[in-house]
């Protein structure tokens, strides 16, 4: 392999970021867009080349795929622990490389149209490049600390991009929320890293992931509250992943993050950054699987299943199309987590792992497409809300078709991409746990339902009174849509099992017909229901709302999770901890210090009278003092 080429892939966006950042005011907006897109095009081509070389030229048939590492020391901690910077090539990192490159390139192209005329155009591309760089770094990370470093960097790029419209208070709040919530999760991640590093003596993925290696085998050596310390570490790392991938209960930032520009939502909050959590678990999969017999994987599976259902239910009631998509993203990510959670390691048992990665890949394509379509729609009607849309199929044919393809894909209708990957997940779950399978199937149905709810709402419903006739977006925006639509259609036919599997061996995936039929049927049922509810305009939705009553209100308010958080942070942490801390400091700690000073002052006030300046008083004191001394010397010392 040519490592220079691989190194160039992340360095190009970094260079673009630096150039745009330093010459911020001197660069013309249009030029900056071109620089960004061009840079990324090179990166994308290189990624494709690398992928081709890895899978086809370099591949050794019949043997497990090798992990290729090229690294250099960045910082030394101790003799064994150190942070390396480098690139690690294995099937999943290359798959992610492709995902990031393609989606990012599409978003770059799309943004040139979407952001046109925005005063922060250059800044936008700079941040986008920064994000892409960080994401590449994350994907290619060779060790836990490198992944953490870029993890933080993508977090901050996300912060900057969500807060891109910084004069909007909601955007500012959302950015802050996103950062703080993920930061909180990262705290878990960091502690997890510390624990893993301490007990295994290494951060290197290569060493950590070796099923027979000492790091994994060391789990039995220590225990803490009934679980191996290493399991605690992995659980904490999973919390980090859950924060980024918006698993319940750390999901609250994701819907708010939709305050950012729509291309950002497509890139960061649908296709790439949010899958980092899934990627992290997949990256450490052998550890998760082998340490204490996969106890943490069960946690992963249940958290995944619950989040998937939870998010899907909320998605039904939301009226902001981007929020629906956000909850959908959360639900799909949870799906991937679920698949990882139920996966085994070797051979057929590793189907869940493969399915999860497969779904990650396809989901990135169609969810990015969905967001970009939504962006196109929002661009046309200047609103995020369903009530301001309707009948747009006449005005925006390309957007309409591409959206439909994406919606069908996510609903799991063959032969689109979503069907294949979702089917694999369902098979994997079915083989493991029936309860989880039912949940997963239900989620699939709900997914189809809410997707078509907004589809009908946007494109079919009666026109609202448009202030100006909406029109199709410019070519810069529609071309990426078309390309992504093509990917969404075709991605399912990639023989994914040949490239990616838990044990790196070729995995022959085959369609389990009854299960596939059940999945398709559920999807169709969801679509049909949506058609009944929202296409026919029978007033059914309102009736349902009335019938469900409280339940609907709860769902509409996202089960008040936000309020709980707000209560905890505002009322408890701020009011009960931070404010008392500040007060305590000013009054008690500082009060003590100032009090010492003041009491000195007061004492001196009191004894100031003695220093009256009257010679006679001094004389008296003098005489008295002399007397005391004389008496002391004469009658005490001479005794």
């Amino acid at each position, binding site marked *: 392999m040519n490592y220079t080429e691989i190194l160039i892939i992340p360095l190009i966006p970094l260079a673009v970021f630096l150039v745009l950042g330093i010459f911020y005011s001197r660069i013309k907006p249009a030029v900056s867009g071109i620089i960004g897109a061009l840079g990324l095009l090179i990166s994308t081509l290189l990624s494709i080349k690398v992928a081709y070389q890895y899978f086809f030229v370099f591949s050794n048939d019949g043997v497990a795929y090798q992990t290729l590492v090229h690294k250099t020391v960045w910082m030394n901690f101790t003799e064994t622990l150190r942070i390396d910077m480098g690139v690690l090539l294995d099937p999943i990192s290359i798959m992610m490389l492709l995902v990031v490159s393609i989606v990012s390139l599409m978003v770059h192209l799309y943004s040139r149209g979407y952001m046109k005329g925005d005063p922060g155009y250059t800044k936008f591309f700079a941040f986008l490049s920064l994000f892409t760089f960080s994401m590449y770094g994350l994907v290619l990370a060779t060790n836990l600390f490198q992944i953490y470093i870029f993890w933080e960097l993508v977090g901050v790029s996300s912060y900057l991009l969500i807060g891109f419209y910084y004069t909007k208070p909601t955007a500012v709040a959302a950015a802050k929320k996103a950062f703080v919530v993920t930061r909180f999760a990262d705290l878990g991640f960091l502690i997890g890293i510390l624990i893993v590093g301490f007990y295994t003596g290494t951060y290197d993925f290569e060493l950590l992931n070796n099923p027979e290696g000492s790091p994994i085998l060391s789990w039995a050596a220590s225990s803490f509250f009934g679980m191996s310390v290493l399991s605690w570490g992995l659980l904490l790392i999973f919390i980090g992943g859950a924060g980024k991938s918006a698993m319940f209960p750390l999901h609250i930032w994701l819907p708010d993050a939709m305050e950012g520009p729509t291309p950002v939502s497509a890139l960061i909050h649908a296709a790439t950054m949010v899958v980092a959590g899934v990627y992290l678990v997949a990256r450490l999969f052998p550890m998760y699987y082998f340490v204490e017999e996969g106890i943490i994987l069960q946690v992963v599976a249940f958290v995944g299943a619950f989040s998937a259902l939870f998010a899907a239910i909320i998605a039904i009631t939301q009226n902001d199309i981007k929020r629906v998509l956000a909850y959908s993203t959360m639900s799909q990510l949870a799906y991937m987590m679920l698949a990882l959670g139920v996966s085994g390691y070797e051979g057929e048992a590793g189907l869940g792992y493969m399915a999860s990665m497969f779904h990650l890949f396809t989901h990135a394509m169609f969810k990015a497409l969905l967001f970009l379509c939504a962006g196109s729609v929002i661009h046309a009607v200047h609103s995020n809300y369903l009530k301001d849309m309707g009948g747009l199929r006449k005005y925006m044919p390309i957007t309409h078709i591409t959206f439909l393809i994406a919606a069908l894909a996510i609903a799991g209708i063959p032969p689109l991409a979503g069907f294949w990957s979702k089917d694999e997940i369902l098979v994997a779950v079915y083989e493991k746990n029936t309860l989880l399978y039912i949940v997963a199937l239900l989620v699939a149905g709900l997914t189809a339902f809410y997707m078509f709810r907004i589809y009908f709402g946007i494109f079919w419903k009666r026109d609202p009174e448009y202030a100006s006739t909406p029109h199709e977006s410019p070519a810069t925006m529609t071309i990426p849509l078309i390309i992504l639509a093509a990917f969404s259609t075709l991605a399912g036919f990639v023989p994914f099992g040949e490239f990616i599997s838990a044990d790196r061996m070729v995995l022959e995936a085959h369609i389990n017909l009854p299960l596939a039929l059940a999945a398709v049927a559920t999807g169709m049922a969801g679509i049909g229901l949506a058609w009944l509810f929202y296409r026919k305009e029978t007033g059914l939705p309102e009736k349902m709302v009335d019938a469900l009553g409280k339940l609907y209100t709860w769902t509409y308010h996202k089960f008040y999770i936000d309020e709980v958080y707000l209560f905890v942070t505002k009322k408890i942490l701020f009011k009960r901890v931070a404010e008392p801390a500040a007060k305590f400091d000013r009054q008690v700690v500082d009060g003590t210090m100032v009090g010492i000073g003041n009491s000195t002052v007061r004492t001196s006030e009191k004894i100031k009278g003695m220093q009256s300046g009257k010679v*006679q008083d001094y*004389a*008296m004191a003098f005489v008295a003092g002399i007397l005391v001394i004389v008496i002391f010397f004469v009658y005490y010392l001479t005794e």
Partner: protein
Amino acid sequence: MIHDVSLYEILTVTSILFFIGIYGFITRKNLISILISIELLLNASVVNFVVINKYLYPDVLQGVVFSIFIIAVAAAETALAVGIIINLYRQISSVEVKDVETMKY
């Protein structure tokens, strides 16, 4: 030289004189009274010098010489003090200690 009066008596007298001077110095509020008290103090010490010189070390003259110096200094001091008092009186028409306190500030 007298034999009826011993050193002890004279020293007793000077001690009494000395402490009368101190008492006066501390309790009087009038500058001139304070001055008088100081004279008493000085005189008590002068007598001590002289008497001890006479009774114990008749061969040397240090005590006498010092007495002369003390007297000289006392004279100078008194002259100055009186000068100050008169000047003060001219300025503030008082020679009470409490009135002079303004000078502290």
